[in-house]
């Protein structure tokens, strides 16, 4: 029999018994994640039957996927909006506000300049400034999703987050390159 467990039909918030909201108690998420993995992880089943080992791997995989989605602010937003049936249009909608695009260009130039100058301290500074912006955008997302249910505006924020994350990757890879 290849029955799908009831747990597999729950969404990630239900799986962790957490309210379906953007604001999240991270400590509680961590605690439930571990409690769940303690029950389902393959290490608990390696001496048991093949059926139990297979189900354990499926469950553990799902719990990991759920945790990775909920613990990451961007992925959580994306997931929540999809639960609300909102299409974020990340690939198709690239029309961003002009001032946002302007700022993007400034970021890119600053990173490129620091990379060329092999200035690790400057890259670190850019990194922490970027983190600050990310936190601000996340606070705005919480407001728009949880308090105002303004999902269209939230979708715009997620598209912005994607841009900022790209920048963070660029800084990381510039730092990596300076190491070698």
């Amino acid at each position, binding site marked *: 029999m290849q029955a799908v*467990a009831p747990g597999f039909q729950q969404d990630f918030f239900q799986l962790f018994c957490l309210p379906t909201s953007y604001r999240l108690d991270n400590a509680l998420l961590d605690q439930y994640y571990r409690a769940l993995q303690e029950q389902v992880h393959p290490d608990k089943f390696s001496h048991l039957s093949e059926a139990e080992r297979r189900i354990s791997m499926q469950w553990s995989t799902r719990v990991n996927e759920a945790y990775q989605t909920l613990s990451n602010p961007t992925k959580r937003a994306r997931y929540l909006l999809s639960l609300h049936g909102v299409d974020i249009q990340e690939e198709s909608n690239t029309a961003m506000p002009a001032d946002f695009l302007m700022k993007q260009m400034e970021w890119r130039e600053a990173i490129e300049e620091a990379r060329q100058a092999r200035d690790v301290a400057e890259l670190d500074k850019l990194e922490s400034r970027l983190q600050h912006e990310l936190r601000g955008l996340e606070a705005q997302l919480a407001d728009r999703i949880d308090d105002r249910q303004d999902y269209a505006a939230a979708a715009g924020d997620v598209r912005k987050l994607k841009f900022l994350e790209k920048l963070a990757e660029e800084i990381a890879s510039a730092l990596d390159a300076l190491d070698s």
Partner: protein
Amino acid sequence: MALLQISEPGLSTAPHEHRLAVGIDLGTTNSLVATVRNGISVVLNDENGRALLPSVVRYLADGSTRVGEAAQAVQSEDPVNTIISVKRFMGRGLSDIGVVNGLPYRFVDAPGMVQLRTVAGVKSPVEVSAEILKVLRTRAEEALGGSLVGAVITVPAYFDDAQRQATKDAARLAGLNVLRLLNEPTAAAIAYGLDNAAEGVYAVYDLGGGTFDISILKLSKGVFEVLAANGNSALGGDDFDHRIYCWLLEKNNLSALGASDTRLLLTRARAAKEELTEHAETRVTANLCSGEAIDTALTQQDFHDMSQNLVERTLQPMRRALRDAKLAVTDIKGVVMVGGATRMPQVQRAVAEFFGQTPLTNLDPDKVVALGAAIQANVLAGNRGGDDWLLLDVIPLSLGIETMGGLTEKIIPRNSTIPTARAQDFTTFKDGQTAMSIHVVQGERELVADCRSLAKFDLRGIPPMVAGSARIRITFQVDADGLLNVTARELGSGVEAAITVKPSYGLSDGEITRMLQDSSQHAQGDMQLRALREHQVEARQLLEAVQNALAQDGAALLDQAEQAHIRASMDELRTVLQTDDHHAIKRAITQLNDATVAFAQARMDKSVSRALGGRKLTDLEV
């Protein structure tokens, strides 16, 4: 036994026999086997009281092998047939292996993995490693007085899929049931964590014979979490030997040495390196084939100078690991030292300087990995309640596929907690396209050419459609050993075709079978006997597990008919277990497994809801 850990406290089931399980550190230079005895992890020694088995295998013309000290003693006399540091070749092609020139072997460039031509024929690194594992298995079975339920085998955290697969294949070839491939630094942390009840973020600096690993681990409330892993799978103590060797050549104006002189000088170089751990100066003496005698003084300072950039090459992976873990040096509460090469004073100094603290060295750096692996093996064999701790491990390198223009599309990023799975949909780019070629790679670089190729396969039988309308779903599943399985399905128009990756690096089941048959120690009758014994052990374990599960949850989760169905399968397995027919036993095992799928699922649901304390969404304050 804490089956699924859902038994009520005080409601313990019947006591069972202690299952024999071991931890094996399959090292580049030395290998060890350890087990938990009376609750304490101990390394098992050979009949001469030696714990370390040199990872050296010598092949003789009659097809027999010598492993360990016996092989090491003659390595300078018979370097071509005496394989050392074979771990470096596991899952590696000829082009992947750095310095081939200094090595005395006759390499055969086979597809996927390099092979070695010996007097006993061409050998794969998997076969050579299996010889080492067989010796350790025998040592353990003799010391423990019974056959092993399984083994935890350690691998460098930085090992890619091909290297892990090769290690697992070697274990299978040696007749070992692999309970888990465990990352070496994690094993070290288990040994340290339990002994010292440590909490916090730790770095494990593991400089072994041929590999360097740095791992950032978070230990808290019994959970071991690998936050990041990095390293260099071609950097280790051997490279320090090689530096001394090159220095000796230069000092003595030597060039183009024969294979046995090369080996002799490398052996002397290693001895000098070890000497310099305790002493400020040493002499290297050797008599070469030409009759020339070498007698050269070497100071600690000389050695430090010539090896400084090797030590520095360990710093870059450390910085990367910290960055991946989003941590600063000051967040690291302690640094665990693993591997014999960490005894070198210049290494300890560099690590202390980098982290701004003295590293931990109170466990023997050669034994710590095996000790930790044994502790994990004991838990995985079900010898104690597994609720003591949980090990959450990650994949060290990103997995992806090749897309247009030779670019890599990452599907599972590095440092993802395993097991993990990710499905991604792709489509056809030509009208009427009926096949698609899928190239699976591992690595961080953007160009496919810079990543490791893991597998290539074709998905055929796609119904002809307009470009872009087929939906091909590629699913990556990484299991708890870090091993990858890729499947592709065509979902468009309801037609499905599935394919499993044919490994280009790992060995197929057919190859394993052939190797088993080739091996002189596995005559046909021997194999039958082994299969019978393995299936008997498996059957008894399964019966015990199902028996316990029924006792705990049978009445609550199953109706009479379902219970009767499972019991009938159990009776059948018990009946065939009385015979010597290993095929029939295997069939009955499969049948019982199939009969318990729904039951196992229901039990899992029950334990999952228990994990969250039976909370309902409505009970929580929103």
